[in-house]
């Protein structure tokens, strides 16, 4: 029966083969989106007796969110977090990849140094960094003091610095991971272009600027998508470092979602945030997809 490979025929086998995957995607990706969409139109709070039963309030949850200055701050924090992590990580990743790709001795150590944070659990990494940010004797502050810095010390407890502390840890953790994609990109570059450039007497810098960077554009787009999604979904270090505080100054979208659902037990609001979250991610991925398709056409 499997012999019918190219002719579309009524064969139940392919459906049976994709069935498990489709079921799990349906249960844990499609269904939760639908459920949240439905729940986002109801007021329901599990820890307040009179709101325990859902009641329809239309767009009430969405309106409440966008009128809430806290939520607006969280949106701003999320934007700052993305702006603070994505471009720097990508820039560092490219720099690391170029450095690690050279044929020099001991380059393995460099690669290990840049890549190893990727393999650590974010919560473990953050626990170590928590010490670095400790006031007075923390390593980070001691070093800054050594370099002549005399500003605010309590990084994770200072509303102006907490988000920056969270950003620093994320950049440290992810740059080496993105480096790997650039390494793959660089190693897939066509040799003949470089040979031609060398024949034409191009300097290393010119080759880098005129050939390597443009050829890595697709890799950069790919890394940007990954980095963007990572920025949205990785909040483990926030639990360890700041718990979103002080006064929500380091809370981002997913952290607020967690708080609304599991601390405030607010089903309606958390469903609305889930939907906003999903829409942002879909809009971003689809835009990227459409743009890259157009460029190739």
């Amino acid at each position: 029966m499997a012999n019918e490979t190219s002719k579309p025929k009524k064969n139940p086998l392919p459906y049976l083969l994709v069935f498990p995957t489709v079921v799990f995607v349906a249960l844990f990706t499609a269904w939760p989106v639908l459920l949240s969409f439905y729940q986002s139109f109801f007021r329901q709070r599990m820890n307040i007796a009179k709101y325990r039963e859902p009641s329809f309030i239309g767009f009430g949850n969405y309106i409440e969110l966008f009128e809430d200055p806290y939520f607006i701050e969280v949106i701003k924090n999320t934007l700052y977090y993305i702006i603070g992590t994505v471009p720097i990580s990508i820039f560092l990743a490219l720099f690391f990849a170029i450095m690690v790709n050279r044929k020099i001795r001991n380059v393995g150590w460099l690669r290990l140094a840049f890549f190893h944070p990727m393999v650590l659990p974010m919560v473990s990494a953050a626990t170590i960094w928590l010490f670095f940010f400790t006031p007075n004797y923390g390593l980070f502050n001691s070093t800054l003091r050594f370099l002549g810095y005399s500003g605010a010390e309590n990084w994770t407890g200072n509303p102006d610095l907490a988000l920056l502390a969270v950003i620093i840890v994320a950049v440290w953790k992810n740059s080496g991971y993105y480096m790997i994609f650039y390494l793959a990109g660089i190693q897939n570059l066509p040799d003949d272009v470089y040979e031609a450039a060398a024949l034409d007497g191009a300097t290393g810098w010119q080759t880098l600027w005129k050939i390597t960077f443009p050829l890595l554009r697709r890799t950069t787009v790919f890394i940007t998508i990954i980095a963007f999604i990572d920025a949205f979904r990785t909040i483990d270090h926030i639990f360890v470092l700041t718990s979103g505080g002080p006064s929500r100054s380091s809370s981002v979208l997913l952290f607020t979602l967690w708080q609304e659902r599991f601390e405030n037990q607010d089903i309606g609001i958390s469903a609305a945030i889930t939907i906003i979250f999903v829409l942002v991610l879909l809009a971003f991925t689809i835009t990227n997809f459409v743009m890259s398709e157009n460029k190739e056409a």
Partner: protein
Amino acid sequence: MTTNSIKLLKKTGHWAGNIISIFLAMLWSVPVIWALVASFRPANEPISRGDVWFGSTLTLENYQHAWSMAPFGQYYSNTIFVVILILVIQLITIILAGFAFAHYEFKGKRILFFFVLLQMMIPTSALLAPNFSTIRWMGLFDTRLAIAIPYFGSAFGTFLMLQAFRAVPRDLVDAGIIDGCSWWQLIRYVYLPPSIPALIAFGLSSATWHWNEFLWPLIITNSDKSRPLTAGLVRFTQLGEIGAQWSLLSAATLMVIAPLFIVFLIFQKQFIKSFMHSGIK
């Protein structure tokens, strides 16, 4: 510009690159190295006083102490159980789905494929609130199965398998069909052997990802019988009596990191290759 000054410029650039990258590499390594050093520091010599790096001697007491303060053994077995369970089921589902999408033409194939890809566009962590409800409804709350089950189907893995299977030469497949291979013999003898690198790549990234995962297990577990290492560590750091005992915390942190990290150090090249592989699309 004369050739000499170009050479000089190149050399300076080379050296500047070296110095900056060595400096950054040192900076990047400080956290883990510090934690390693601090974990062997005697507990009665707090880091707030004296040198932030070394104490007077090296000791293993922090590890013993941390181990006795929380059920790390149970956490280990939970994490390992979850990682293996996810991996085994994923390998089955992605091979079957990848094979179906690569080998057959069937009605609704494109729609089904796009449907599966949805999982790559909407990360599971965005859906933790509704998934929590689903798990409760299934009666799985606070079980190790609950940590694993949302990941049993993998769009990423299906995609990787599809790519790998498509690269298998058509002649080979046709030869298999002529020899009368059944569908699972085609997978076993024709499609799988050349796709092993893709499988390893997927396996390593899946294991790393789920060993390190925190948020979902935090939400879906409520007792030590199902809590994995990451959630256990955060609970440990919040124990009242711990406070700022950094050497104890470092020991606990390293215990969580160690198994995967040692495997990574041994198979470093394989890891990096795998992650490179999974990035090429």
